[in-house]
């Protein structure tokens, strides 16, 4: 009994520590102050300003949101296509060495330090820029550069989400479709893709969140292109690094993330198998 209480206290304290800064920020997003202390009375004004575009950082925030979403959506799309195709192909390969080579190269961006991946991509972009001589590109060129960089570290996660689905599903269904007269391409679209769709969807969502959360690779590779992460980094040295509108913006993002994660881990019907 005492043990039970101690365990609960321990878990509770760690949870409180994990959420304290976030909750503190959310609380102070409801008052008119850039700081984390002086409570100035409850107000929704920060949120209203945020949505009407009247807040102090309005244009900066808008630009960052547009940039982040643009890169996030296209990264998600590109890495989902590449990762899914890669997974299907990899699943069909039975040569152990080839398979191992694929898996190792897939692991590299996942286990390598982010900063090393960032440097390596910077070298690549430098090389490309010097050979076709473009220095600092247009908005679109920068965005494409960033999408490619993000796709590099997102694709492996998509592949790893799709591959188990393929392994779980019966290889025979593809062969059955061929047997019943499908061309390989048709069999792929009519039978295999629907079967692995849940893995693809999770992979796409994962790629999107990884992209919008990324800081290190973005910061190292692009300069005049602000995402939400790099915007935060740019604010860090001010006296009050988290102004009111930033607080309310990230409070909203937090609630979306919270709802999303909770839906993913929602109470499952745990079928009890007992004899």
């Amino acid at each position: 009994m005492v043990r039970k209480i101690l365990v609960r206290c321990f878990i509770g304290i760690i949870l409180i520590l994990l959420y304290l800064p976030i909750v503190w920020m959310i609380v102070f997003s409801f008052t008119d102050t850039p700081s984390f202390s002086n409570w100035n009375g409850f107000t929704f004004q920060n949120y209203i300003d945020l949505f009407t575009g009247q807040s102090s950082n309005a244009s900066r925030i808008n630009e960052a949101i547009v940039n982040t979403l643009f890169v996030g959506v296209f990264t998600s799309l590109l890495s989902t296509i590449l990762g899914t195709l890669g997974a299907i192909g990899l699943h069909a390969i039975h040569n152990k060495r080839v398979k191992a080579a694929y898996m190792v190269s897939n692991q590299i961006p996942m286990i390598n330090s982010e900063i090393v991946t960032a440097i390596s991509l910077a070298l690549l972009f430098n090389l490309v820029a010097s050979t076709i001589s473009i220095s600092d590109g247009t908005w679109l060129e920068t965005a494409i550069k960033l999408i490619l960089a993000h796709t590099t570290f997102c694709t492996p996660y998509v592949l790893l989400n799709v591959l188990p689905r393929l392994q779980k599903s019966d290889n025979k269904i593809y062969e059955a479709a061929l047997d019943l007269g499908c061309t390989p391409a048709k069999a792929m679209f009519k039978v295999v893709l629907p079967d692995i769709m849940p893995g693809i969807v999770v992979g796409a969502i994962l790629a999107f969140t990884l992209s919008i959360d990324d800081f290190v690779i973005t910061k190292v590779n692009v300069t005049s292109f602000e995402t939400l992460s790099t915007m935060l980094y740019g604010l860090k040295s001010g006296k009050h690094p988290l102004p009111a509108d930033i607080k309310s913006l990230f409070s909203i993002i937090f609630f979306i993330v919270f709802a999303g994660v909770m839906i993913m881990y929602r109470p499952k019907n745990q079928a009890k198998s007992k004899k």
Partner: protein
Amino acid sequence: MRNTFRKMLATPYALFMALFVILPIVLIAVYAFIDSDGALTLLGNFKELAKEKSLDNVIKNSVIAGLSTSAICLVIGYPIAYYLTKKEFNRTGVMIGLFLVPMWVNFLLRMMSTKAVFGVLGIPLGMGTVIYGLCYEFLPFMIMPIYTTLLKIDKMYLEGAEDLGATPIKAFWKVTVPLSIPGVISGLTMVIIPSITTFAVSEILSDNKIKLLGDFIYNLKAYNLNMASAISLVLMVLLAISMIITNKVSDDEAGGGIW
């Protein structure tokens, strides 16, 4: 024959990975051994690095921060992962979800809020706060692999141990802990290297007083890509060695990953 179509599907993926993963790594290896003018120099960049006075301090700080972060994460994360697999907390996925949410909140935001909270509470910034921040960032990465490994351990092993006379505590130490080692190793690899090479956390939580390897490489990149490549190469070699060792210790299948 029938497989060729499916094998072909991997081509775009293979090309992309070759271009954006393998080639850049080759570039690192090349840049590490040439100077900024493009001339071949075998150890020039490494000698330059050794001359950097600040590097000693950076390495010392990184080792201290990395080791204490992973130790703290293990000590806190293991019991949490263990109790989350218990029926009391595991009835729904909500508890494990609660521990994962912070992982999806922008870490800069969390670090900046933490700094602000420390400011309000009057806690001075320094090594302690940096380690706190690193633990904050990496605790979920320790909990998840241990949690998945523990969840996979069949209850029958514990019943077997108790049947043979082990008290629940003995059964925990003699069966649960050894069987969860792959998860612990996988957790440690997900915490040690990233916490050493992370960038911006120490900058925010120590007011730029303490620099870790990540910050060092980032600053280096601005003026000397060759030196940055050299140190990246060293890091990759260290990582590869540690991966080979851990792969030998834990067999692949039992390992618990995050995803």
